[in-house]
């Protein structure tokens, strides 16, 4: 996930600049307005700052791939058997292959149940799938289980949350504690804000699910 900022006199101009610079269509970019100053009658010159969220391209970003080899066939068969026993009918396929990662997409009418509250069922299925994978093959690729693009949608909304929280603590000159997240989700927040010089992040709490606090720099040692 990458984030770029653009400015223009108004929203449209900023978006057009982004489209031109990135060589993408309007529908392909995810735009967030960071700052909007209306032009004044006397001074003219309004300013709109937008933030564009770009997804890293995957080699095969659309459609599904044919399973290749024993490992992929066996892991698909295992996950199909698992979902069938949950009592849900679904179609399981390979969505991408990356260095040492295999994406599994579950297509089902009941994908809401398979995703679960804040993705926790998806996470559980992934945990079990990875243990099963280690039984099929030593040094197996990591299995990423997804349904209806939940993971990339969640990633995008977390990165957006990170930037919004940064803006908020800049305004309040204080800190803000985010909701509990798993390690992967927390890393997204830390990474998203690592380049922002005036804010800092740290994790608080115990166990797998910790909470990230976002600080305005300088607020940390006060009181």
């Amino acid at each position, binding site marked *: 996930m990458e984030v770029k900022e653009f400015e223009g006199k108004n929203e449209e101009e900023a978006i057009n600049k982004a489209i031109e610079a990135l060589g993408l269509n309007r529908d392909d970019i995810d735009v967030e307005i960071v700052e909007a100053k209306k032009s004044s009658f006397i001074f003219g010159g309004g300013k709109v700052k937008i933030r564009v969220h770009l997804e890293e391209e995957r080699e095969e970003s659309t459609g599904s791939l044919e399973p290749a080899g024993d490992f992929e066939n066996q892991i698909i068969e*295992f996950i199909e*058997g*698992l979902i069938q*026993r*949950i*009592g*849900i009918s679904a179609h399981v396929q390979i969505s991408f292959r990356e260095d040492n990662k295999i994406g599994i997409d579950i297509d089902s009418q*009941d994908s809401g*149940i*398979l995703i*679960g509250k804040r993705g*926790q*069922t998806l*996470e*559980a*299925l992934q*945990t*079990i799938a990875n*243990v*099963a994978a280690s*039984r099929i093959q030593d040094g197996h690729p990591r299995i990423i289980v997804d349904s209806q693009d939940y993971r990339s949608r969640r990633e995008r909304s977390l990165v957006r949350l990170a930037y919004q929280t940064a803006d908020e603590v800049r305004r309040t000159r204080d800190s803000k504690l985010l909701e509990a997240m798993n390690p992967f989700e927390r890393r997204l927040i830390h990474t998203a804000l690592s380049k922002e010089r005036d804010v800092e992040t740290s994790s608080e709490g115990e*166990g*797998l699910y910790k909470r990230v606090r976002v600080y305005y720099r300088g607020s940390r040692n006060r009181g």
Partner: protein
Amino acid sequence: MEKELVEYIAKSLVDDPSGVVVNMVEGEKSTILELKVSEGDIGKVIGKHGRIAKAIRTILSASSTKSGKRVVLEILD
């Protein structure tokens, strides 16, 4: 249904699948599933900090959502 689900998951995790036994105890309000595995495999179905057990319970509750039955998993040691 839930019994087969737990058996299926447990057998995929352990070294000794033949040692996996699931007993169903029907209670008043809910069904209890008792999972028993070979002695050396208990750690495999519980996992570090109970991570695997938690995943099994989460999947089980997804199944309950679908079937409307409340099911509790107990791992016997």
